[in-house]
């Protein structure tokens, strides 16, 4: 027997970085094969190459089923013909449509005399579900299913034709990231069955327990290189963590610790709701506290709940001794909180409004003397453009005309104008170029020197090491670890994130 999938010396160079270098490994037919790696290890780049979303560098090759393709000419249709099926994190289901309709998306609906044969369609869908032991009725709207069942429906859609042997490989990209723990086990045991029946699975995950308990083989990538492909049997948690994290040196010089005032600016006690399960935190005045955690750990929920975007199920937030009204953004802003969200386009930018209006959006009140004074507003905008080196045609230019990095500087400047007591930053430099990044760091540090406290959520370990005075590790909605700046290393953070207990009894 050959292989279900084989990468041969696949590389991918982006301008300025090499995301993958000469990665080679194979997936055996019928194997439950895990692909693991940390931040920037290249595993999602590899998946995107397999899907034909990215084109790899010329020299490598991808072999799948009976066919082979040069790595730089893999297209979505080649990938589909070769029998590779993907279930992405976003399942791509239509919530208001029934399971049967979802299963037939992209296929010809069965018809009689031109009209859709609903009964035949439902029957075919139900047969497929029964064969794959998906415990749902084909007539149910997908939106009303549990998350695990939705994932199973997405998988069933991929495996619809698998009885005919057309699906050579099922690729699952972090399918459990959004699932509650109880449903994770259900999903995984179903995957075990499929693998036992001969279905090859490539399973991308960062959850070590899942890999150790369910996969038979694991491939580890680190910094775009292939580290190991080996049987899971005989591998323990510590060894796997070691493979993923490696011997990492700190590239940045340790800076001198910042002097931090003893007063506590933010107190979070027992905060819960959504993925949060009782968070306790203190951020002191002039301190940068970084939150490290994997996706699904509740990082974004934590800052959003503190800021009042979600009403917490329990617990409280105090800013300088004042208790915030739960679930009220205006109250949080009034108390001196500021929030730079991760998704700038959806949650922060007024792209069709002028830069001056974007900059004043959080501090409109100060321009009201009887009515809104445009003069001072424009003067302050010109001042901020200079101070934060925002490159723009002028203060009235629409924000959408600016580059991403300059938009991000403007969003940060918007909040710094309010002289916030506490700055909540969610991935503040994601998708921002190196130059703008350095400027953003300088501004954050300046604000901190002025007494602002920062709660920083970031996936970028270098950013975390550069800025943080203290780091807490978040896993499964709880703080599982904490360390001071001088004790924090890349290795510590990476190890703690991956090694955090993932099941809480």
């Amino acid at each position, binding site marked *: 027997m050959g292989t279900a999938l084989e990468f041969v010396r696949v590389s991918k160079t982006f301008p300025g*970085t090499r995301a993958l270098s000469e990665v080679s490994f194979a997936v055996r037919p019928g194997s439950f094969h895990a692909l693991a790696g940390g931040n920037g290890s290249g595993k999602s780049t590899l998946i995107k190459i397999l899907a034909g979303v990215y084109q790899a560098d010329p020299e490598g090759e991808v072999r799948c089923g009976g066919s082979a393709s040069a790595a730089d000419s893999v297209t979505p249709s080649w990938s589909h013909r070769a029998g590779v099926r993907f279930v992405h994190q976003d399942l791509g289901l239509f919530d208001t449509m029934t399971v049967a309709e979802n299963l037939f998306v992209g296929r010809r609906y069965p018809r009689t005399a031109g009209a859709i044969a609903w009964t035949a369609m439902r029957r075919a869908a139900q047969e497929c579900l029964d064969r794959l032991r998906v415990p749902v009725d084909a007539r149910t709207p997908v939106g009303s299913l549990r998350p695990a069942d939705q994932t199973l429906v997405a998988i069933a859609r991929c495996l619809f034709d698998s009885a005919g042997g057309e699906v050579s490989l099922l690729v699952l990209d972090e399918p459990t990231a959004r699932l509650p723990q109880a449903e994770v086990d259900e999903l995984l045991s179903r995957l075990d069955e499929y693998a036992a029946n001969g279905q090859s699975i490539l399973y991308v995950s960062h959850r070590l327990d899942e890999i150790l308990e369910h996969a038979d083989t694991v491939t580890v990538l680190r910094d775009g290189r292939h580290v190991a492909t080996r049987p899971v049997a005989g591998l323990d948690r510590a060894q796997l963590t070691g493979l993923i994290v490696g011997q990492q040196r700190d590239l940045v010089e340790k800076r001198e610790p910042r002097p931090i005032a003893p007063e506590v600016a933010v107190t979070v006690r027992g905060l819960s709701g959504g993925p949060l399960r009782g968070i306790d935190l203190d951020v002191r005045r002039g301190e940068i506290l970084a939150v490290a955690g994997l996706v699904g750990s509740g990082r974004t929920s934590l800052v959003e709940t503190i800021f009042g975007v979600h009403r917490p199920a329990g617990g409280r937030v105090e800013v300088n001794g004042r208790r915030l009204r739960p679930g009220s953004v205006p109250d949080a802003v009034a108390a001196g909180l500021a929030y730079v969200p991760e998704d700038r386009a959806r949650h922060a930018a007024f*792209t069709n409004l002028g830069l001056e209006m974007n900059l004043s959006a959080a501090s409109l009140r100060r321009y009201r003397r009887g009515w809104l004074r445009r003069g001072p507003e424009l003067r302050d905008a010109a001042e901020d453009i200079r101070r934060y080196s925002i490159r723009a045609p002028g203060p009235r230019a629409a924000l959408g005309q600016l580059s991403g990095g300059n938009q991000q500087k403007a969003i940060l400047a918007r909040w710094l104008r309010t002289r916030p007591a506490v700055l909540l930053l969610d991935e503040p430099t994601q998708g921002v170029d190196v130059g*703008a990044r350095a400027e953003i760091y300088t501004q954050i540090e300046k604000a901190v020197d002025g007494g602002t406290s920062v709660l920083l959520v970031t996936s970028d370990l270098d950013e975390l090491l550069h800025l943080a005075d203290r780091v807490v590790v978040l896993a499964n909605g709880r703080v599982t670890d904490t360390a001071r700046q001088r004790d924090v290393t890349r290795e510590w953070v990476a190890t703690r994130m991956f090694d955090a207990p993932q099941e809480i009894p």
Partner: protein
Amino acid sequence: MTLSAGTRDDQVQAPHDGAPPPAGRSRRTTAWPLELVERFGLVLLLGGIVVFFCLWPATSDVFPTVANVRNIAANESILVIAALAALIPLVAERFDLSVGAIVATTSIATAKIATEWELPLVLAIAGGVLVGAAIGLVNGFLIAYFNANSLVITLGMSTLLAGIGVLWTGYQTLLGVPQPLLDFGNLSWLGIPRPVWLLAATALAVAFLLGFTMFGRRLLAIGSNEPASRLVGMPVSRTVMLAFACSGAVAGVAGVLLLARTGSAAAGVGTGYTLPALAAIFLGSTTIRPGRFTVAGTLVGVFFVAVSINGLTLAGAEDWVEPVFNGAAVVLAVSAAAVIAKKRKRAAR
């Protein structure tokens, strides 16, 4: 997972981040004349139409007279004020399809208060405006706090008000409007029809509200990006609710003016203003500040249609010309606005 997938890939996908690409600048300068045409196209077209009707033999006798100009301005004042009413919530991307019905209802209310209850005229006028504001408040409350679709709610309100109008008037036409109100509707101050003064005052007030108050700025922000508005601490729901209340009050002003111009109130009179009002706003959104709903644009929109139809009518066009012209203008304007918006989005990318 953002941790592994996010940072590095996103970084390299946007390698040209930082300064805007140099090409953008030069393109912008070469696009100048085109942008000017886009911004003032409708204004120029309006000017062209005026010149045309002044010179065309079929209309050149009557069209350029003072009487005709007064006639157009006074006649359109009700529509302009109704359009300004619809403009306020539209800035926050909410439709008010009940403006016409509110105009009708408030004119009935004012007439009732003045004639049947025999209260002083000032109270009757205030009553009319307040009824408008109250209806708007109900619209706004449902739309803002129940997150209901503004189209459906205001359409429903419109139907409901039509029924109430009939109930109130019992198919009668209310007459006997106090003389001072009739004078206001039909006489002039300083040679300019009094309704035009009201039009100017209302336009200035709405322009001030939208451009120079926190409320107006919030509406603009909500129209631009509603989640972002919430996340800078703006009271989005309250602002939306107040927008409809203001809209209702301004529609109430239009209702009082309708009563003053016609001297009578009857169920159903005034409901026809809704679509021409929205049409004018959309027409106006293609000009001066393309892509944005503005007071100036709305004025241009109303008078573009009014002047055209006036000229055509003077030239002997039949009744069907008006709705055809009005409808065609809207369809073309909204298509043009969509094209502009798409182009803008592409340019921003």
